[in-house]
């Protein structure tokens, strides 16, 4: 029925935690399940007003990155998984960031329920960990060793084969 489209929104405004506003078209916003849910709810209420969605956990520099990702993926929405060009783009996209940014981006993808981005981040992080030693991983990710020496020895001893 045509009536359902009478209240459809074409754009939403997203507000970052540091109070910057981003105008996002609906197709791009729908890459995030969180934003899509907000849009769907508003459409159900039949509003024609532009809605404002505040994201209290995402800073504007990270939100810019998430939206860049969503924009690219909205263009490929129909064959998301099998497109080589898109995969290449994904890889180049993540390669640019330092680990602190990657951390915030992962949290943002989780918070905004952008599953493909979250998957991508987790895979990228896992790939960076592969074949590294414990010391190297702690150094790269700047993680403090919070085990006592005895605890660490016990844990390693449990799977001594992996540390020879």
């Amino acid at each position: 029925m045509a009536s359902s489209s009478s209240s459809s929104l074409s754009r939403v405004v997203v507000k970052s935690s540091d109070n910057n506003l981003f105008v996002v078209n609906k197709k791009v916003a729908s890459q995030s399940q969180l934003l899509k849910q907000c849009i769907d709810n508003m459409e159900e209420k039949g509003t024609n007003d532009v809605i404002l969605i505040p994201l209290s956990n995402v800073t504007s520099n990270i939100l810019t990155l998430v939206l860049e990702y969503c924009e690219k993926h909205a263009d490929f929405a129909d064959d998301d998984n099998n497109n080589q060009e898109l995969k290449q783009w994904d890889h180049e996209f993540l390669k640019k960031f330092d680990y602190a940014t990657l951390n915030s981006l992962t949290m943002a993808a989780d918070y905004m329920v952008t599953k493909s981005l979250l998957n991508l981040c987790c895979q990228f992080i896992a790939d960076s960990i592969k074949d590294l030693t414990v010391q190297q991983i702690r150094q790269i990710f700047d993680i403090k060793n919070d085990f006592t020496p005895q605890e660490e020895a016990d844990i390693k001893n449990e799977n001594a084969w992996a540390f020879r």
Partner: protein
Amino acid sequence: MADWSQLPQELIEQIALKLDTLEDFVVFATICRPWNNALTSLKEHERFPKLMPWLLLSFNPNRNIHYNLDLFDPCKDKCYRFNLPEAYNRRCWGTSLGWILTLGLDLEIHLLNPITKASIRLPPQPLLTPVLTDPDDSDLWKIQLYYIKRVFVFKSPIDGQLIVFVVHYDDNVLSFVKPGDSSWIPIELQVPSSEYLRGDNSSNWNQIIQLHNVMDITYWNGAFVIVSKFGGFTFLDLNQIAQQQQPCLVQDYPLIPLEISNIENNNEARIYLVECNSDLLMVLRFKAEFVDSQEDDDDYSDLIPVDYETINFKVYRHSPGFDMDRGWEELHDLGDLAIFVGSHSTMCVTASSVANCRGNNIYFTDDDYHVCTRRDMGVFDMKTGTIEPYYLNVDDNEFRQCHPVWFLPRI
């Protein structure tokens, strides 16, 4: 400032699940407490990354005086040495749940996780008549010949209980046991009795016969599927297996209309079953027999009239809802899938999710034991139809005691 140790546990778990080797998974747990907690939780829920099976290499009785067993991880291209007196001088069969089944000359049967060293004793096999009187270590190879052909371990989704199936070598009968049970239970078939079929209604309508010629068993679409030598399929209900001690009521399905009828004339063919993405896959393995022209001074030369090698594979797919009579489709391309066949449980892996694994390939180990002069082990490429040898770092002589088998590692 980003703090990687303070990621929500769920995200740490997601990252860990994207690793592709057990070593990286274990290293991950030693980084910091929150990461260790995430891994502990994953292990408790038996959630593991997608891993490639490891190759369990044989003991060399001359070299392994310290009871060391080598396990090879193809992803890392690395051999790990485990001190395992528990498995020394015992035959080993791999499974897809981290366990290997071991059987020694003492005829004791154990499930052993070679990595954690967890062990479960299983009852001895009542069906088996001991063929070895006064055995010594040189008789070890006969255990395979006379006892076990295929092993399948399943974890019940109902109560988490393990069920261990074994196909016996001699007459290819199948039996199962649950750890804690006092004995193995043979799988028997309930069929209309010949008297009943002749119209004698006073007789029992059914008779129990033992299921013979079993080639492989797997779990698919809510039931155990058993394939027999001539292509017959039998379905077993999990609840009956899980709860009953009596012979199981089973449904028998007709022969499948395939080249399997040719298998009847080819003793050197094998059939394997494996579940993959809700499809049931059947792998046919063809071997060529030939007379060994060289003089053999070997002790067992009187038992070795011919030799053999694997020459070809065919793969068929059956999807849920298809008519069992007609629903087999030959696959010429496995895509991203790699299949592992041998005397271990049949397994399959998505190749792109692990390093150093070739999709559209079948990894095979030897599952014949009446000839031990060579090793029939390699990788079959579905695209080219060619076979490459696999893992050449082992002296052929070591294969005499126990052939390498694939198993899926778990911690």
